[in-house]
C-alpha cells in the first residue's frame, strides 16, 4: 500500500511509493496482453469518475482500468450531471458520498478541488487533473513509459517544452522527475514560464536547440489553443519554429533519445506529423501505459487495510 490514501499531487507520494506503483504497473501491463484482460481484484468496489471538465483519454483510461479490475465504474461528466443545473461541487460530493463509493477520480477546472473533496468524503480521492495545478497519474505513466523504453530513470535529462506556466502535466512531472533522481529541464519562452521557475528545482532554458543534444527525453507540452486570453506569443508559426519538435531537431538529439507528448497533439505546432508517427515518439505507449499505471494506483489505494474501502 501507499503512504497516503489520496493522490492529489506528487507531494502525496514518496519515491518508494512511486517505485511500487511502477513495479505493480508492470504486472498489470502483462495482464493487459492476455486474451482475458479482466481480473477479479476490486470486485464489489465502486469507482466514480467525476470529470467536470472535458476529457476523453484520461476518463476512458480510468474507466478501462477500473473495469479490468472488476470495479464498477460510474462516469459523472459535466454535461450529463446536475452541475449544468447549477449544483455546487460541495453538493455533488455529498450526493456521491451518500451513495457510498470507494474511490473518486476528479477532474476540475479549479486547482484544489480534489483536496476539497477529501474534506467532504470518506473515500480515497485521486486527482485526474485540477486546473493548472497537477495531474499526478499522467506524471506516473510518463515515468513508467520512460523507464520501459530507457531502462532506468535516475540521471535522465528530461526537457519539458512549452507552456510550463499553465500546464498541470508539468506541475506533476517536474516534482515526479526530481523524486526519482531525474533532471527536469524547462524549455520555453519567458512568457510561458512561471514567474519563479527557480523554485521548482529544475534547470531553465529559452533555447531549445542549445539543450536538445543533452536530453534523453523531449517532452512536448500541448499548446492550449482554447485558452480564452489568447496566446502569449506572436503566432503559432513562430512558436513551431522556435519550440516545435521536427525531424531536423530529432536528428540533433542523442540516437537513444525519445519524444513524448501527453496528448492530444496539435500536429504541426508543438510536434510535426512525421516525428509524431516515428518510432522515436512514445505517444501511443504513453496511452497504453496509462491503463496499467491507473490499475496499479487503484489496486494500491484500495488494497490497504486502513483505506476507506476496508471499513
Amino acid at each position, binding site marked *: *500500500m501507499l503512504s497516503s490514501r489520496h493522490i492529489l499531487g506528487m507531494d502525496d507520494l514518496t519515491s518508494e511509493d512511486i517505485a511500487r506503483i511502477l*513495479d*505493480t504497473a*508492470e*504486472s498489470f501491463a*502483462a*495482464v493487459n496482453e*492476455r486474451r*482475458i484482460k*479482466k*481480473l*477479479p*481484484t*476490486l470486485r464489489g*468496489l465502486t469507482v466514480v469518475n467525476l470529470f467536470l471538465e472535458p476529457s476523453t483519454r484520461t476518463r476512458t483510461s480510468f474507466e478501462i482500468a477500473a473495469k479490468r*479490475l472488476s470495479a464498477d465504474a460510474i462516469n459523472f461528466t459535466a454535461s450529463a450531471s446536475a452541475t449544468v443545473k447549477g449544483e455546487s461541487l460541495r453538493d455533488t460530493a455529498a450526493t456521491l458520498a451518500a451513495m457510498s463509493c470507494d474511490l473518486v477520480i476528479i477532474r476540475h477546472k479549479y486547482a484544489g478541488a480534489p483536496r476539497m473533496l477529501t474534506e467532504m468524503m470518506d473515500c480515497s480521492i485521486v486527482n485526474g487533473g485540477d486546473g493548472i495545478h497537477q495531474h499526478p497519474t499522467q506524471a506516473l505513466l510518463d515515468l513508467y513509459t520512460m523507464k520501459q523504453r530507457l531502462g532506468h530513470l535516475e540521471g535522465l535529462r528530461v526537457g519539458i517544452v512549452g507552456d510550463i506556466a499553465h500546464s498541470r502535466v508539468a506541475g506533476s512531472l517536474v516534482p515526479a522527475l526530481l523524486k526519482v533522481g531525474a533532471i527536469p529541464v524547462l524549455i520555453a519562452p519567458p512568457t510561458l514560464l512561471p514567474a519563479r521557475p527557480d523554485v521548482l528545482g529544475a534547470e531553465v532554458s529559452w533555447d531549445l536547440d542549445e539543450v536538445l543534444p543533452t536530453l534523453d527525453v523531449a517532452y512536448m507540452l500541448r499548446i492550449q489553443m482554447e485558452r480564452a486570453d489568447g496566446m502569449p506569443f506572436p503566432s503559432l508559426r513562430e512558436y513551431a519554429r522556435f519550440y516545435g519538435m521536427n525531424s531536423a531537431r530529432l536528428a540533433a538529439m542523442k540516437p537513444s533519445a525519445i519524444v513524448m507528448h501527453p496528448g492530444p497533439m496539435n500536429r504541426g505546432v508543438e510536434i510535426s506529423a512525421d516525428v509524431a508517427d516515428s518510432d522515436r515518439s512514445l505517444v501511443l505507449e504513453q496511452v497504453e501505459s496509462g491503463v496499467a499505471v491507473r490499475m496499479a494506483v487503484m*489496486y*494500491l489505494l*484500495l*488494497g*490497504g*487495510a486502513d*483505506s476507506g*474501502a*476496508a471499513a
Partner: protein
Amino acid sequence: MTSRTKAVVMDATAVDRAITRIAHEVLEANKGAEGLVIVGIVTRGAHLAHRLAERVKEIEGAEVPVGTLDISFYRDDVSTRNNPEVHRTDLPFDLTDTCVVLVDDVLFTGRTIRAAMDALMDYGRPSCIRLAVLVDRGHRELPVRADYVGKNVPTSSRERVHVRLAETDGEDVVFISEGEEEKAC
C-alpha cells in the same frame, strides 16, 4: 514476529525425498510427461515447481514446461490485507488442453489454491489441474484437497508452519513455531 521454533518436521533430505516421490507419482498418474506442465505459486511454490520439473526430467528424460503464478490479483482479501506486494506471473506456454500440476509450499485454508485456479482459468482451459504441496497442515476453509502431498503435518491454528528453501532462505527445512493466531495465507 514473536514466535519460537517448536519442531523441525522436514529436513533437507526429507524435502528432497518428498520431491522425488511426488515426481514419480505425477508421472505415474499422467502415464509419462506428455501434456504435463508444472506451475508454481510465487515465491516458494515456484522454486518447488522448478525442482519438481528437474526431477521429472531426471526420471523420464523429458523437458516439462514450468511457469510461475502470482495470485495477488485473485485473492479474496484484497481490501483487508496490508501488503499487496505483486510479483510477476510467467506462463510462457498455452495452458489449453494441458494437465497442470499446481505447486505450492503449504496447503492451509485452501484460499490460495482457489485463487490460483481462477487465475489459471483466465490463461487458458487446461484439461485438468492437479495440486502438489510440500506440506498439508489442515484447517481447510474451502473444499480443496491436494493430489500429491510431501508430508501431512497436523497443526493447531495457533501454530505457524515455516518452509525455508535454499533458493530464498539458504537452506531446506520445514519447521513449526508457536505464535499468535495465524491469519489465512
